[in-house]
């Protein structure tokens, strides 16, 4: 049995209103500590994004991609999943890495591509991969991760692990071949996967009406025979609850869920574009009033868990943490040049061994190994 919420644009799962009030019928019942952990991760993510975008402007890192305004889209789900569920993410969920407590200095190192970078200076900034957290390398070609996540989920089911895979695409990504392939495969296979469309209104410069003639993205779930829910993506309780429910269905063997998170990208697509050139500023202003962090803060204050002094202390702590991570990384050397030849295959083939030898000999070092 599949159900669909969000066949028309007025249909949206919202629990936490912009004024910080909660719908008592839908309240997921999170305790204070859980709410605070989500809030702190959201603030830390935004502070990190600001700092790293500045770093890009200063020429310290080559590229950056912020998630400003979309923090609830990754942090609600991260809180709803277990720590060993698999992530096959897109590029706008740094909050999930922060929530899963990947050390900030490793996130920063990845953007520098230095010797601390676990991807060893090989991947573009923000294309994080962390094996220990089951977070697979972010793919630049759009949509490819959806079908891969369905495969990961198929493996979890086959191996009898009560784990799910979660994957993200943007509104533009729903036009890709592999979105279709992945959605269809997942539904036919009843794979325990959660596919999230982070609909932020814009695929770089292309607005959603140029991506789809469907009134909502959730309508697509109907055709695949998949449960779909249209969720307020700036409401961390709604993103949490939608993913928690989807996870429960998945591990019960009821198959995948498609969630459309309606949100807005307050910044550019990446450090490479200026959104003022392609979209009206007024649109942005209207969405600032629905800020996901502000909303949760109002809620916490009303619940007596937060005040101005705590807010100031948290901001101070987050800024200090990211500044320390940046400063530490400024002193880290570049990866060894010869490391480039490693890991193409698990075993070094003869031609790469020869190339590596040549490089070593050019520097007066010995033969490999």
């Amino acid at each position: 049995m599949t159900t669909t919420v969000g066949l028309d644009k007025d249909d949206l799962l919202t629990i936490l209103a912009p004024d910080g009030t909660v719908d008592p019928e839908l309240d997921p019942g999170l305790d204070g500590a859980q709410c605070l952990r989500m809030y702190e991760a959201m603030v830390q993510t935004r502070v990190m994004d600001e700092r790293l975008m500045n770093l890009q402007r200063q020429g310290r890192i080559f590229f950056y991609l912020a998630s400003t305004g979309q923090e609830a889209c990754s942090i609600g789900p991260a809180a709803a999943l277990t720590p060993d569920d698999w992530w096959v993410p897109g590029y706008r969920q740094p909050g999930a890495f922060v929530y899963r407590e990947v050390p900030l200095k490793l996130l920063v190192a990845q953007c520098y591509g230095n010797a601390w970078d676990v991807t060893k200076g090989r991947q573009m900034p923000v294309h994080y991969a962390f094996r220990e957290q089951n977070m697979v390398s972010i793919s630049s070609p759009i949509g490819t991760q959806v079908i891969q996540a369905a495969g990961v989920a198929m493996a979890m089911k086959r191996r009898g692990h009560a784990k799910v895979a979660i994957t993200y695409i943007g509104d533009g990504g729903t036009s890709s071949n592999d979105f279709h392939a992945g959605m269809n495969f997942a539904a036919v296979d009843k794979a325990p996967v959660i596919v999230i469309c982070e609909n932020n209104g814009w695929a770089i410069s292309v607005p959603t009406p140029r991506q789809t003639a469907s009134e909502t993205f959730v309508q697509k779930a109907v055709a695949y025979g998949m449960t779909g829910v249209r969720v307020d993506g700036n409401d961390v309780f709604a993103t949490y609850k939608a993913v928690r429910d989807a996870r429960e269905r998945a591990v019960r063997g009821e198959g995948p869920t498609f969630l459309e998170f309606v949100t807005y990208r307050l910044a550019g697509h990446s450090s490479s574009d200026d959104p003022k050139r392609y979209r009206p500023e007024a649109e942005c202003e209207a969405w600032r009033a629905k800020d996901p962090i502000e909303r949760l803060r109002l809620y916490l204050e009303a619940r007596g868990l937060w005040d101005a002094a705590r807010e100031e202390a948290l901001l101070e702590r987050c800024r200090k943490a990211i500044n320390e991570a940046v400063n530490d990384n400024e002193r880290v050397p570049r990866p060894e040049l010869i490391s480039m030849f490693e890991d193409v295959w698990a075993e070094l083939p003869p031609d790469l061994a020869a190339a590596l030898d040549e490089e070593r000999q050019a520097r007066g070092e010995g033969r490999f190994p």
Partner: protein
Amino acid sequence: MREVTYREAVREAMREAMRADERVLLLGEDVGRYGGAFGVSKGLLEEFGEERVRDTPLSESGFVGAGIGAALGGLRPIVEVMTVNFSLLALDQIVNTAALLRHMSGDQFGVPLVLRMTTGAGRQLAAQHSHSLEGWYAHVPGLRVLAPATIEDARGMLAPALADPDPVVLFEHAGLYNLKGPLPEAPAPVDIARAAVRRPGRDVTLVTYGGSLGKALEAAAALAELGVDAEVIDLRVLRPLDDATLLASVARTHRAVIVDEGWRTGSLAGEVAARLGEQAFYDLDAPIERVCSAEVPIPYARHLELAALPRVEGIVAAALRTLGR
């Protein structure tokens, strides 16, 4: 010894792998109830069930991408793609993820995936089924590319391919499935790093792989009638190429003819020729010859198809040219 077909040898290898390791499963189009478009997986569904022999929705990027995910998730999938032509629908998954992920992730994630696909012409299936694009795959770092040309290799290459922690692409030439020959009851494991000398000879080296091996051996027999002793090298491993075996052969024969069913321009034959030019220049007594498919889409009509492909007479003539005859 018993007589088996190439098709049965591949099937037996899959059956053995699935019996030995619960993690192995087969994914693809029509691999289950139908037994595979070329009949390779017949009987496997009955033995291993739908969980392990999966008829997937008809999308190459879908079942290849799902195979990648399954490999990441700890399984050892074999993905069957009906033909190399259709694998182009999955090229992004193969090249941009499977081949790159270990390096891009800093050795955190590998993709132990085996892709089996049919290649080549000779069955009147026309341009969109019949091309030989092995050279494209051999271009890509991160893939191991194998071309079993014999029944022993069809039987023996799958196990080491599954044991490989990285993606392996196995090309089965469509014209080989009905090839029949002897196979030991317990076949020996096959080395997937080395080329093989299929016929020793002193006068000229015929370098080939896959579906052209039979033609090269026939040409060698014809050349023997003319008093020319040809050596036949089966590349077997298209990436990484086994230069040592090639160079040792050319050092003996001083002449080389490369037979490749792919198109000449930008081909694997071109790569082999370049390597011989770079590393065996002073061993060579004659220009390297290449016998490839005509640079046209492979046609349907039998006489046109045959005319487009490398032919035994063409190989013989090329070998004779290297000898000044």
